[in-house]
């Protein structure tokens, strides 16, 4: 293939020679390093192809071997160029095409991120936009080093960034810190722990402070669990002073959560009629053009659009988006929920609720769900019993470190 392309670019001629002893001519060509190929004998002579550059040197060899020559055809780029040299509009079009390509190559038309799990593409793009880095800006104006630094300082979870401009793409590779973690600072401010929810205490691990409840106690929301006030006694058991400390403890309690989700008695069902219509769209900068067959029956349609950004090479993205639109006609009607659907929905509601609870790090002990019919509507109601930490820090604002008068002084 490269050889064929090379020959075409160089240009070659198909020649017919006649006379006695063409073999001598071919041997002379060989010694003179003239390239001949596809040599064949026909009734009216010998045909062969010869490179244009070598063809200009053929005359002495023909003379020596006493052959007559005729050009049968000309093939290749030099001849195409000669053929179209008077077509100025074509030349202008080709020239302007390359000019437009060159101008387009001066801008960034695609920004891609790699390795971002914690921060979404949209978050990062919004930030880049704040920093005046967006699609359509000059490539030369992108300061990759600055961008790397800015990203690292703005997003603390990003530990490593590499930004580079390749073609018309800005490629940003990110490595995020896998262990999400700000080290908890040790606090010394006096505080106490109160219950964040009502429940029955199951476990109590106190590191600092004084327990105000015991295991098995029922507590209400806001009730004090661990006190931050420590009374210091003298030998005779009298309170000398009260010291304020930072209460620190793990207080586990069995708590009950109730949830309810109400649904209407009827649901809207969309059924596909099987009719489809397809269309194409083109987006160039702020302009959008859509070609879609007209809808004569005035159905309701659900559209799915797939957008692809055009690119010439892997990294030469263009500001041109092609949309493939697929529409499906639907008919909607209302009907009551079936028993299976209600059960399915109740399972989903339950799973969602459990998932949210589990994310908080609680341990589920018991779980009851039921479907309640309320005439025109129905609801999913559930009760979950869990064991969780209920200690909530409440700072002690009053400064009341009292000291009893010393009897000895």
């Amino acid at each position, binding site marked *: 293939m490269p050889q064929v392309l090379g020959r075409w670019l160089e240009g070659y001629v198909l020649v017919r020679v006649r006379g006695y002893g*063409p*073999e001598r001519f*071919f*041997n002379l060509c*060989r010694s003179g*390093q003239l*390239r*001949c*190929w*596809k*040599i*064949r*004998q*026909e009734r009216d002579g*010998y045909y*062969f192809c010869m490179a244009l550059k070598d063809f200009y040197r053929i005359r002495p060899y023909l003379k020596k071997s006493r052959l007559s020559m005729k050009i049968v055809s000309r093939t290749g780029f030099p001849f195409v160029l000669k053929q179209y040299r008077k077509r100025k509009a074509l030349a202008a079009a080709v020239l302007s095409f390359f000019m437009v390509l060159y101008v387009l190559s001066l801008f960034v038309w695609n920004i891609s991120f790699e390795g971002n799990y914690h921060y979404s593409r949209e978050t990062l793009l919004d930030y880049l936009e704040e920093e005046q880095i967006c699609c359509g800006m000059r490539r030369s104006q992108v300061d990759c080093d600055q961008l790397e630094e800015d990203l690292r300082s703005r997003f603390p979870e990003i530990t490593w960034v590499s930004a580079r401009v390749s073609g018309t793409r800005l490629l940003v590779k990110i490595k995020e810190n896998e262990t999400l973690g700000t080290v908890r600072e040790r606090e010394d401010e006096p505080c106490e722990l109160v219950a964040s929810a009502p429940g029955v205490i199951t476990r109590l691990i106190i590191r600092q402070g004084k327990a105000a409840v015991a295991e098995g106690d029922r507590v209400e929301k806001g009730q004090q669990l661990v006190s931050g006030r420590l009374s210091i006694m003298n030998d005779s058991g009298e309170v000398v002073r009260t010291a304020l400390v930072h209460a620190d403890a793990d207080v586990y309690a069995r708590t009950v959560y109730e949830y309810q989700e109400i649904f209407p008695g009827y649901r809207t069902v969309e059924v596909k009629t099987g009719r489809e219509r397809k269309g194409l769209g083109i987006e160039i900068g702020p302009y959008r053009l859509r070609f879609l067959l007209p809808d004569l029956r005035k159905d309701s349609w659900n559209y799915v659009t797939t957008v692809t950004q055009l690119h010439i090479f892997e990294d030469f993205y263009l500001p041109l988006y092609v949309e493939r639109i697929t529409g499906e006609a639907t008919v909607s009607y209302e009907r009551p929920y079936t028993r299976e659907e209600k059960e399915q929905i109740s399972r989903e509601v339950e799973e969602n609720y459990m998932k949210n609870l589990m994310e908080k790090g609680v341990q589920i002990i018991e779980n009851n769900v039921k479907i309640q019919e309320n005439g025109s509507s129905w609801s999913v109601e559930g009760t979950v019993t869990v064991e969780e930490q209920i200690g909530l820090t409440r700072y002690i604002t009053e400064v009341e470190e009292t000291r009893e008068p010393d009897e000895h002084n």
Partner: protein
Amino acid sequence: MGVLFQAASLLHLPQDVIPGEPVITVTGRRNVYIENYNRIVSFMDNEVKIQARTCRIIVEGKRLEIQYYTGDDILITGLIHSVVTES
């Protein structure tokens, strides 16, 4: 010539290097590829005669074409009937 062959075998060189023997490669019935040839003696669409240093190679067939030739090698295509060498 015999001395050259002996020298080539003593030096563990390929047999075609020192004496300038032609190397003929036939691929199916379509291609004959000859290396180390001297000149084209005659060329017709049913017979091609090639002169090598030590022998003459006669390729017979139908619709024979010289696909290309350079200073060292030549590729003959067509429907090959026979490849004969004669001194």
